Structure formats: structure tokens, C-alpha cells
């Protein structure tokens, strides 16, 4: 069995889960295995949608997320005999799957760009060295594999009516959730956005981000921030792009008043096109940019907004 972890937002499967399904089906075909899904939920879960994608769907109602409960749920589903576990790559999955991989003594292939099976082994490509190096890696079975978002075509539903199996788990109570600090969600999510407009310390003030938001909205994109900006309290941590923030890979990444430190580049250097606006012609970001303007962001940004509006009219 190839087991897919079907991540969801409480009402629908996430796009990343459909990518994981595509990868799982490819492995299943090459290894002569069937695909099953596991849906871990806190409250409502999209059971009907999920069973359209798999022959067997394991469902567990687990309450608030903890790595221990999620790992236990997956291990329970895996008891039916598992060759590979495929999951969308996220901070959370990369934590609880560390537990799962250890428990199964499986090879763990994290955040893969591509994957395939050959001669009973699983191969994958992934980035390393803060996204600077591409690795080709191999593991024997069993394997636990996470799929980097936006790397894989989305799976179509099989039109199946998968059998639903409810998992019952003994209570796991080593971590008690005291308080959730929900993030305010507006617009497109940063990691899924096709356009990201990031502001750095060069913007000079939190107020200057109104214009960043305006440009992002015009382009149907999301706002990003550097660590310098987050540390200064100008923007929430959830918007930070980089080694300790989010990794993004949009078609268009616009960096405004961003110096281009390696830790920042690690989160965005795989973007298709990178645009930089910086007043310093020597700023490292220009070496990593396709297009750039050497100039004061306070003059260039309004002009950019105006030019985009003109184009749209």
C-alpha cells in the first residue's frame, strides 16, 4: 500500500494534497501497489471529497494538532502494511513524519521536487544547502516522502467511492494545547501565490507597506517580508520569506528595499523571475535578479503601481 496523507483546511483538500496524490499514484504504479489515504482531522474533514481519490480512506478525529497524535494516526493506518507514505511538505508534516519515519525505520525523503521508483527503490530530487544545491537521492523501501508544493500536476479524482475506515487510537496526551494564536488570513496564501511582493528594511517604515499591499493586490499576489522587517515588528512573522521563514517559488518575485542576504535568498531563489528595486547598485540582490531598478523605492513603488494600473486598463 502507498499511503497518502491528505491535508485539508477543514472543508476541502489542499492543493498540495492533490500533488501528493499524483506522486503516490506514480509510485503505486511502478511498485504494483494500491493507494490508500489517511485523513487526520480536528473536527470537520472533507471525507466525501477524499474518498473520491482513493480505494481506502482511513479517518481519525484527533482533536487539536500535535506531532504525537498525527504520527500515531499515520502509524495506525500504516499497520495494514505500507511501502511508502507520501505527504504534502509543510513544517508540521516534516516534524510528525520524522517520528513516523523513525518508527518504521524508513528512508525519509523530505521536500522532494520529483520522485520515481525503479528496481524496488525510490529516487527523488530535492534541494539542499539552503536551496543552493539540487540533490538526487535514493532510498530502499519503506520510504516516507514529502512533496514540495507547486512541483507536481494535480491529481484528478479517480471517481472511486473509497471505503472509509475509522481509526481508533488510544489517547496520546503528552502535549496539551493551551491557546491557539490564529493568523489573520487575507488574500492569497504566501506559499501558494504566483506573485510575491516582498518589502525589506529599505521601505523605512511599516506605513510604507500599504503600497506593497496595493501592488500585491493589483498583481493578484501575496505580501512577503524580510527578517529585518519582522524583527522590527513592521510585519507578522507569517509573512517572512527565507531560511527561517517561508519558502516560495512564484512566477514573479518582487523584492523592494531588500539587500539579498543568503538567508533571505534561501526562501525565494527558485522563483521563476526575480525583480529587485534597491537604491544601492551594489546590493547583492541584483546578482540574483532578472530585472531591477536602481532607485529610491519611495519613488519607484508608486510609479510601478501606476504603470501596472495603466497596463490593466
Amino acid at each position, binding site marked *: 500500500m502507498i499511503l497518502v496523507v491528505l491535508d485539508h483546511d477543514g472543508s476541502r483538500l489542499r492543493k498540495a494534497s492533490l500533488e501528493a496524490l499524483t506522486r503516490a499514484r506514480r509510485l503505486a504504479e511502478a511498485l504494483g501497489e494500491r493507494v490508500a489515504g489517511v485523513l487526520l482531522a480536528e473536527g470537520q474533514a472533507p471525507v466525501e471529497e477524499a474518498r473520491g481519490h482513493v480505494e481506502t480512506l482511513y479517518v481519525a478525529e484527533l482533536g487539536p494538532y*500535535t*506531532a504525537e497524535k498525527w*504520527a500515531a494516526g499515520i502509524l495506525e493506518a500504516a499497520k495494514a502494511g505500507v511501502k511508502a507514505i507520501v505527504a504534502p511538505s509543510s*513544517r508540521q508534516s*516534516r*516534524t*510528525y513524519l*520524522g*517520528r513516523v*519515519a*523513525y518508527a518504521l*525505520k524508513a*528512508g*525519509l525523503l*523530505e521536500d522532494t521536487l520529483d520522485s520515481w521508483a525503479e528496481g524496488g527503490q525510490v529516487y527523488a530530487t*530535492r534541494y*539542499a*544547502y*539552503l536551496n*543552493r*544545491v*539540487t*540533490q538526487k*537521492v535514493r*532510498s*530502499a523501501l519503506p520510504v516516507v516522502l514529502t512533496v514540495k508544493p507547486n512541483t507536481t500536476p494535480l491529481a484528478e479524482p479517480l471517481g472511486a467511492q473509497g471505503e472509509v475506515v475509522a481509526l481508533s487510537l488510544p489517547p496520546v496526551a503528552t*502535549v*496539551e494545547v*493551551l*491557546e*491557539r*494564536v*490564529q*493568523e489573520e*488570513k487575507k488574500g492569497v496564501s504566501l506559499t501558494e501565490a504566483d506573485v510575491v511582493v516582498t518589502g525589506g528594511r529599505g521601505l523605512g517604515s511599516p506605513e510604507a507597506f500599504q503600497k506593497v499591499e496595493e501592488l500585491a493586490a493589483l*498583481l493578484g499576489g501575496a505580501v512577503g517580508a524580510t*527578517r529585518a522587517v519582522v524583527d522590527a515588528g513592521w510585519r507578522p512573522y507569517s509573512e517572512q520569506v527565507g*531560511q*527561517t521563514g517561508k519558502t516560495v517559488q512564484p*512566477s*514573479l518575485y518582487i523584492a523592494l528595499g531588500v539587500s539579498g542576504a*543568503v538567508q533571505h535568498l534561501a526562501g525565494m531563489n527558485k522563483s521563476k523571475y526575480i*525583480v529587485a*528595486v534597491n537604491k544601492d*547598485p551594489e546590493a547583492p540582490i541584483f*546578482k540574483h*535578479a*532578472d*530585472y*531591477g*531598478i*536602481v*532607485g529610491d523605492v519611495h*519613488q*519607484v513603488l508608486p*510609479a*510601478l503601481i501606476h*504603470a501596472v494600473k*495603466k*497596463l490593466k486598463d
Partner: protein
Amino acid sequence: MKFIAVIRQVPDGESRLRIQGDRVDLSGATLILDQMDEYGVEEALRLKEKHGGEAVVVGFGPERTEEAIRTALAMGMDRGIHVVYEGYADPVTVAEALAPILKEESPTLILTGGQQADWDSQALGGALAEALGVPVVAWTTALELEGETAKAKHDLDEGAEWVRVRLPAVFTTQQGLNEPRYPTLPGIMKAKKKEIKKVPFGGGSRVEILQESIQEKTRLQKVLDGKDPVAAAEELVRLLHEEAKVI
């Protein structure tokens, strides 16, 4: 009380990477204590300062990893343990190598970085926790001891939460948890005399690296002069629309 920081030595992000025979060659790179692990060292030191006890640094990697262990000792850690292993090891293998040592030490808690700056793995915390049969709290930004438990704040994929966790537990660290101190000159002198116990590891990695390549995407580097911001902005938008076709 005993606080353990698990660390590795990695290339400095600024240093040049070379490829030799299909693999990354670090011989010319500046190697440092992984900055993500540094947050763990700092937190172990702060916990010890507040609650007393011992702060121990455990390093995994080749002989040269001793330098990173010395850095942690110079920051103030009491003693070091070095699990010596050449080459790449996946997180499950690293956890297997470290588990017997960590069990024997029986610490109050264990800290390690949220992501490795060389292999880009985020799984060591989870794998270690499983190996020890204890809980894991990932991407921790605040940590307080409360008797047999700890209260911690940590990031989720969306948002953050406060949790209470039974100790011992593994915490993965990140920016925001603290500001790591610099080793002082007296600290460096003292570190020379501190014990580092060497432990060989005979196991092997489950995951093999077959090939590594540096694919710095060649960028167009078309830079416009912004003295006339309106003209530059219009030209940029034209290029993005007509040439790159991304807007």
C-alpha cells in the same frame, strides 16, 4: 537538571560551494556551528543559568565537528559529546546514532535546530523524539520550565500556539527564541580544557545521495536606472508583460 543541545557543523551560508565528482566539496568553505542549532545552545545556557544543573552539547558529524562543539563550549556549555561519523546521514540514522547517548544522559530536555543549513532537513527533532519516546515541540519561540512540564510557544503552518508538555521532551529551535551570545575570550580559553567525549558510530545512512549539483539559475540581470522613476517603472512593467510574460 540537564539541558542538552544537539548540534552540527555546516558551511556558512555566505561561503562558496564547489562540486567535485558529483558531490558538494566543502574543503574550501567556512564551516560554522549551524545558526539554527546556536539558538538551542543559547537556550540551554539560559535554562541552566535560571534553574541550575548542567548544559551539555552533543555533536554529530566528522572529526571537524569538534570545532563547532568547541564554539558551543566557548559560549558556556559545560561539556561535549561527539558522535563521529563521516559523510551524509539521514535524520532517522542520526537519531539512531544519538539515541543511546541521550538515553544514558537522561536530560530534562533536548534542543536542536528547526532546519539544518546543509541537508535542509527539518526532521531531526521529530526523529529524536520518537527514538526516545518523548514528545516534540517544533519551531519553538518561547520556553519556560514549570516543574515536571514546560510551557512553550511554537509556530504552526498557520499561526502559532502555546502548549504545555511533559518533560523530558525535544524542542526544535528557531529565530525569535533568543539572541545567541558570542563566545568571549575567557570562554574560548576555558573551552580548551573542557571535556569532549568521542563516540564512534558504525551505522550507515538509509538514504543515499547519488548526485549533487549547483544550479544557480542564470539571471538576466537587466538593471534599469531609476533616476526617472516613472520611465523606469513603465519599462519594467513592459518587460514583465512582453518579455517575461508574468504579468
